[in-house]
Structures are given as structure tokens and as C-alpha cells.
């Protein structure tokens, strides 16, 4: 029992991180029908911005605990600036195009942002170990375990609950559900759909940046960190069913647990296992676990 506990805990922590990434992705797809490849670059931007913000904070000799606030601030700044910029500046001209074409458009954005990041922050690795080391460790089944991971899990829970609350319990959220259900009818009823698109994309972008900002203290931030993340988030979202928030949560937890179990018992299969889960789910349920079947139309 004692050696299963860390595996489960690891899986949940990794799953929480995955959920932060994929919640934004699935939200944007659900509302706008855009499978956003640029989600990976927003993640990278979040990580870089976190390094800059928290780095400046710590260099200024301010109390180290405040660097957590800087991580959140970095995510909000990135999401709040780049999200609207992308949606108003580019994506709003693309609505109505084929879903696959939209994937290509966001892929192009992804390529552009990769180089923008290199131009702004350079190609060297950035390190930001303080927020990770600061809270210290706790003991779990005889193993020392970073408290930071608990914070990550808490963050994912708070985010998930906030999203559910905003979607199902507020007036704006219910309007958004109407937009998801039938875009044209909502327009006819006087809902300003383009404003909801802007808001959705901004929230999704902020979530991606948040995922990046919270990862920054645990890794070396280097060019290309968004490349791997984006296909991982795809896998999670597709497993859960595109556009389903609950699906993303379940998918993230599933992938997180499978990954931590394979890392523990069969480390060679780490990457393989994640995509194998995705392939198996898609074979059994072609549209993912929680997707609604659509009627075929002529």
C-alpha cells in the first residue's frame, strides 16, 4: 500500500496540471470550434512571463512568498493581453472556416510565437526555483514530497470549480451555454456572440498561461517547452470528448494516473502509454468519453 500512495499522488498532481492546460483548450473548442494549437505557445509565454515577473520581484528584495502572487499575475497579464490580441487581430476573421483550416491557422500562430519568445527572452534557459523550494516538503508514506504539488492540485480544483460555477450558476455563463448550443439562434435572441468569443478566448488563454506560470518553478524554461505540452493537452481533451469540461477533468486524471503508474512500473513506456490511452479511448468511443453524438445531415 505504501508504495502505491506516492504513485496515486503523483498522478493526481500531474493530472491537475494537465487539467489546467486542457480546460482552456476544451472551453475554446466548445464555444468557438477552434482546436487551438497556439495554446502551447500561450503556455510557454506564461512560463517565461512568470520567470520575468517573479525574478524581478525576488531581485527587488521583496518577501519571497509574494513570488506566488507574481506567478498568478504573469498568467493574467499574458492571457489578458495576448488573448484579446489574437482573437480580435486574427481569429475573428477566420470564423466559419473549416475546423481543420482553423487548426492550421493556430498552428501558424504557434510557429510565429515560438520565434517571438526567442526574440524577447533569448535562447538560454531561465530558472526560477524559489517558489518551488520555498514551501518545503511533507512526508508521504516515508517519502519527502514537495508542498508545491499540493498547491498545484488546489489551484486545479479552484479553477475547475470556478469554471463550473461561472458556466452553470451565473447569467453570463448560461448565455454562453446558449451560444454553445446554437450560435445563430442566440444571435437572433440578441446575445452579443462576438463578445462571448472574445471572453472565452481570453479566459482560455489565461488558463494556458496559468499552466505555464505554475510549471515555470519546476523546470528549466527553454525555447520549445510548448511543443510537447500542446499534444499532451490534445490527448487529454480528445479522451474526454472535445468541448466537455467534465471530460477534460476525467481525461486529465486518467492520463495523470496512467503516466505516474507507467513511470513507476515501466518507465520506458511513459510517452507511449499516454497516447496509447488516447488511441484506445478513441477506438472504443470515437468522439471521446463525454461527447454528444450528432445526427448525420445531408
Amino acid at each position, binding site marked *: 500500500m505504501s508504495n502505491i500512495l506516492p504513485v496515486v499522488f503523483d498522478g493526481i498532481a500531474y493530472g491537475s496540471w494537465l487539467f489546467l492546460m486542457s480546460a482552456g483548450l476544451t472551453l475554446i473548442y466548445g464555444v468557438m470550434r477552434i482546436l487551438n494549437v497556439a495554446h502551447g505557445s500561450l503556455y510557454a509565454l506564461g512560463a517565461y512571463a512568470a520567470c520575468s515577473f517573479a525574478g524581478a520581484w525576488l531581485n527587488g528584495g521583496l518577501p519571497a512568498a509574494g513570488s506566488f502572487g507574481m506567478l498568478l499575475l504573469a498568467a493574467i497579464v499574458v492571457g489578458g493581453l495576448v488573448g484579446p490580441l489574437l482573437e480580435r487581430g486574427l481569429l475573428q476573421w477566420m470564423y466559419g472556416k473549416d475546423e481543420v483550416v482553423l487548426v492550421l491557422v493556430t498552428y*501558424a500562430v504557434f*510557429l510565429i510565437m515560438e520565434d517571438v519568445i526567442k526574440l524577447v527572452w533569448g535562447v538560454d534557459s531561465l530558472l526560477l526555483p524559489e517558489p518551488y523550494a520555498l514551501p518545503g516538503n511533507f512526508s508521504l508514506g516515508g517519502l519527502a514530497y514537495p508542498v508545491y504539488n499540493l498547491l498545484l492540485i488546489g489551484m486545479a480544483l479552484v479553477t475547475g470549480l470556478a469554471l463550473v460555477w461561472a458556466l452553470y450558476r451565473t447569467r453570463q455563463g448560461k448565455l454562453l451555454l446558449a451560444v454553445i448550443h446554437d450560435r445563430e439562434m442566440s444571435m437572433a435572441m440578441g446575445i452579443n456572440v462576438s463578445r462571448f468569443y472574445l471572453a472565452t478566448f481570453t479566459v482560455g488563454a489565461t488558463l494556458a498561461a496559468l499552466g505555464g506560470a505554475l510549471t515555470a518553478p519546476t523546470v528549466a524554461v527553454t525555447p520549445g517547452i510548448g511543443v510537447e505540452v500542446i499534444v499532451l493537452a490534445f490527448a487529454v481533451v480528445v479522451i474526454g470528448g472535445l468541448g466537455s469540461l467534465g471530460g477534460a477533468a476525467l481525461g486529465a486524471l486518467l492520463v495523470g494516473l496512467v503516466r505516474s503508474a507507467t513511470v513507476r512500473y515501466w518507465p520506458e513506456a511513459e510517452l507511449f502509454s499516454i497516447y496509447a490511452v488516447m488511441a484506445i479511448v478513441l477506438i472504443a468511443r470515437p468522439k471521446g468519453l463525454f461527447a454528444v453524438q450528432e445526427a448525420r445531415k445531408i
Partner: protein
Amino acid sequence: MKALAAAAVAFALLIALALLAPQWLVFMAMLALAKGVVVLGLVVLMRTGLVSFGQGLYFGIGAYAAALLSHQWHIADAAVMLLAAAAAGGLLAALLGLLLARYRDIFFAMLSLALSMILYGLLVKSAALGSTDGFNLHARTFFGIAFASGMERRVFLIAGSACAVVAALMVHRLLDGHWGRLASAVRDNELRVSYLGASPYRVVYFNYLIAGTLAGLGGALAALAVGHVDPETTYWTTSGEFVFIAILGGTQSIMAPFVAAAIFETLRTIASQYAPNVWQMSLGLAMLAIIMFQPAGLWSLAERWRRSA
């Protein structure tokens, strides 16, 4: 007849290039040709309205098949390598196609992506195949005839050109006829194709098979040119590159993938020489410009120019 003439001219030009050009140009031409062959397969698939974000799977399988022949079994004949790579790609596509042909749109794209990432995950962790570093391959003969030194790549380019020209002609014949129209019909309205008594599943499956075979062939060509294989060949960014070239050229002509691949390789060589840090950015900007202003690809420019002349 016109296609045949164009193919003959292209082949003659490629042979001249292979014999006369400096080594670096021969190398570039081989890479462009390899990618052109892969993209040709992708274009066949796109005629049915499906975009695969996982052609790197077959590209990698082809490259590794060729490399394994020389590495494990000491078969160093380039012709055998090319045939084996195409066969390996085709076999795998025949198997996976059974599954993938049931999927459409974004799900087809994502599942093909996942399958290529599975192979990537396997290759990265397999120490016997050199993990992330990959390994080298050497081809010493072609149909049993040994190369004179310094001639390898020139011979590869001629062999690759022959393969590409034959493949392009076959695809041209196929798409020009009944099958090509059926493929377009599947893209336009699949349900009606079923009502009319044809099987969309079979069209998609067969086109996927062609795409897999050609990608395998392209993988071997690239491996022969570089003399090295690594898991990067199966990574999703490689697959993305193929999609980019396909969009750049457009799906209307059989020549377009090759022209687009040549443009792509040229740009990449220039960019990596003079502006390595903005290379991806220029790619992205070009892609956006094409999607917005030339959605049918660069080839439609040539068509328009020809019509007005």
C-alpha cells in the same frame, strides 16, 4: 499525354541536376524530393477532405526501415531500402487504415497525430535503436552495382526522381479518373455518396494506403540523403511541416507538392543560414498569408497566370 510530357521533362531536368549540380544542391534536391513524395500522398488524402497530422508516422517508419536494413541485416542496397520502406509504410497504413478510415475531420487528424506520437514515444525510449540520437545508415550499392566514391547522392537523386515521377504519374492517372471524382464527392458530401451506392470507407481507406506508402518511400529517400535517422522524423512538428507544404502548394495539381517542397527547402536553407531565429516566424506568416489570400495554394497563381497569357 500532357502529363507524360511534363513528367519526362521534369525527370530529364532532375537527372541533369543530379549529374551536374554541386553536392550541396544535390542534397537539398533530395530532401525536397523526399518531402514532395510525402506531400503527394497527403494531397491524395486531402482530396477526400481529410488532413493527417501524423504522416510523420510513415515517414519515420520508412526511414527506420531503410536504416534497419543496413544496420541490423547488413543489406546496403539502396533500391532494396526504397522498396522495403514503401512496403513497410504501405503495410502499416493497410493495418491502421482499417481503424482510421472510420474517422473524419478533426478526429481523423487527432487520431493520426496520436498514432505517430506513439511511435515517437517508442523510438525515444528504445535504447537498441539509439533512443533520441538515432543511428547512421550506409547504402553501398544500387541494384547490386557499387557506387563510385562521391557519386552516392547523385545516384540516390536519380533513383528518387524515378520513383517520384512514376508515383506522380500513377497518382495523376488515379485522380483524373473515376476514383478522383469519387474522392472529391466524399469530401463534398459523404452521405450522398453512400446513397449512390459507393463506399466512402473504401475510398478513404485506399487513399490512406497510398498516402502511407508514399510517406514510407519519402522517409527512405530522406534517410538516404541525410545518412542518419532519429525519432524527430516521427514527431508532430515533422507532420506539421508536411501539412504546411501541402497547403503551400495546394491540392489541385500533382506537380504542386514537389514545387512547394522545393520552395520550402530553399527558404529553409536560406533562413537557417541568415536568420535562424525568425525562420519559424516567417513560416507562420507565410502560412497565414496563404490561408487568407490564396486558399487554393500557390499553384492557383500559376494557373491564373497561364489562363491570362
